[in-house]
Every structure is written in C-alpha cells, then in structure tokens.
C-alpha cells in the first residue's frame, strides 16, 4: 500500500504540465536529423553499386592501372589525358550520376514496393 506522502506527491505530479521550450524548433531539428541519418545509412542501392564498381573494375583493371600510372598527365597535358581516357571517364561519370540519382530515389522506390 502507498503511504500518504507518496499519494500526495503523485496527485500533485499528475497536475503538472511540462512544456518543451520550443516545439517548432524541435520538430524541424528532428526531421532534419532523420534525413541526414537516412542518407548516411547503407542500403541495397549502395551494395548493388559497390558490386557493379568492383566487377567493372576487375574486368578493366589494366585500364585502371594505366589511368593511375598516367595520372600526372592531367596536370602536364590535360587534353591528352582526356582524349586518351575519354570513354572510361564518361562511363564513370554516368555510373556515378545513376548511383546518386537512385540513392536519392531510394526511399521512394522502397515505399513503392511496400
């Protein structure tokens, strides 16, 4: 059984109304943080593209080593470097663009499937 002190303390406490200092600010902060959190997490899209990059990299490993070895050309003769590696650079940029686009779409895609 409860003693009177506790009964009174509980009765008083029940009457109290607590208020957050700034609920609007809290709401904005939480929603903003939730977006940062979701973009920082690793999803299926990330894993899929990781595999894609690994496979493409493995198939074209000679080309990648050649780019690394001749990377100093980008400072000395940038036009020659771009001309030599034009297609690999374009393909890389396209892949990165598709990856970033799909990553932004990530949540919507999964909502669609649910």
């Amino acid at each position, binding site marked *: *059984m*409860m*003693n009177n*002190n*506790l009964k*009174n*303390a*509980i009765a*008083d*406490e*029940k009457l*109290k*109304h*607590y*208020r*957050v*200092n700034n*609920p*609007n600010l*809290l*709401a*904005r*902060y*939480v*929603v903003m*943080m*939730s*977006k940062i*959190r979701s973009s920082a997490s690793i999803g299926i899209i990330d894993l899929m593209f990781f595999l894609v990059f690994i496979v493409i990299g493995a198939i074209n490993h000679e080309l990648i080593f050649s780019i690394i070895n001749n990377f100093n050309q980008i400072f000395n003769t940038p036009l020659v470097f771009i001309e030599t590696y034009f297609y690999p650079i374009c393909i890389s940029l396209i892949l990165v663009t598709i990856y970033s686009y799909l990553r932004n779409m990530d*949540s919507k895609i999964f*909502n669609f499937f*649910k």
Partner: protein
Amino acid sequence: MISDQEIVEKCIQEGNEHFEELIKRHSNYIFGFMMRLTGGNQMFAEDLTQTAFLRAISYLQSYNPAKEFRGWLATIAINSFRTEVRKHAKYTLEENMDHISANEQRGDNQDFYKLLSHLSSDERTILTMKYIYDYKNADIARDLNMNLNTVKSVIKRALEKLK
C-alpha cells in the same frame, strides 16, 4: 483536424516533413514523461525526447494504426530511456539529487522526484507508468518486454522501499 494515423500514412507515402506536426502535437507529453523518468533532469529529458522522435521516424513503418500513436511513441521513449541508462550508466542517485536541488532553487515542487530518487531506474519507470500515467500491469509488462509477475514484484518492492 487530421488524425495522427493519417499523418503517419502521409509520412510513409510522401516523406518525413509531415512528421513535424506529430512532434508539435506530442512533444510536451513525451517531454513530461521523460522529465518524470529522469527525476527532473531537463537536459537528459530533452535529449531523450529528441531520440524518441528520431527512433519513431525510423520505425514508422512498423506502427500499427489500430493503436494510439501517443502510446506507441511513449513506449519508444521509455525504451530509449532504459537503453541510455544501461548504456552510459547515467542517472546515478547523486546526479539525480543535484538536479533536484537545482530544481528546488527554481521553486519547483520536488516531492515526487525526491521520493522516487531512491529507486532504481526500472522501479521508477514502472511506478511512473502505473501511478502517473495509469498504465495497467499487463501493458507495462508488454511495453517494457517484461514478465507480468516481474512487473508486480517490482511494484511491490518499490512501494516497500518508499514506506
């Protein structure tokens, strides 16, 4: 006024921006709950309120619209409190007493906090749920993932301590 369940549906379909409304509606309730669990530690209660809403956003897909949204949110907040207490061994008696004296200096009535300061965090959580928020023992057991008999014995032990 649009219901909580409808807002949750909108959040799932259109994005988290709609969740702002739910935070504005329920932040005082959750903050009050956390203030009581932390014995008036305002900073800790504010942190827990934020954490609870962030977790609620991540688990929004698992929310059952048949249940009251505020109750679901409170369960997340209570479990956040228990996790934080366990993780960081926060909220020792001495720490709690510091907050009580700080609150007393502001002129608040601290009887409730003082009485409960001698209890463990689980005892305090269960007593707060039962006597302040009128939870049934079975609901406490379900929300805290505890055995019903454990809940009953914790209540009995806590009340013994408070005599």
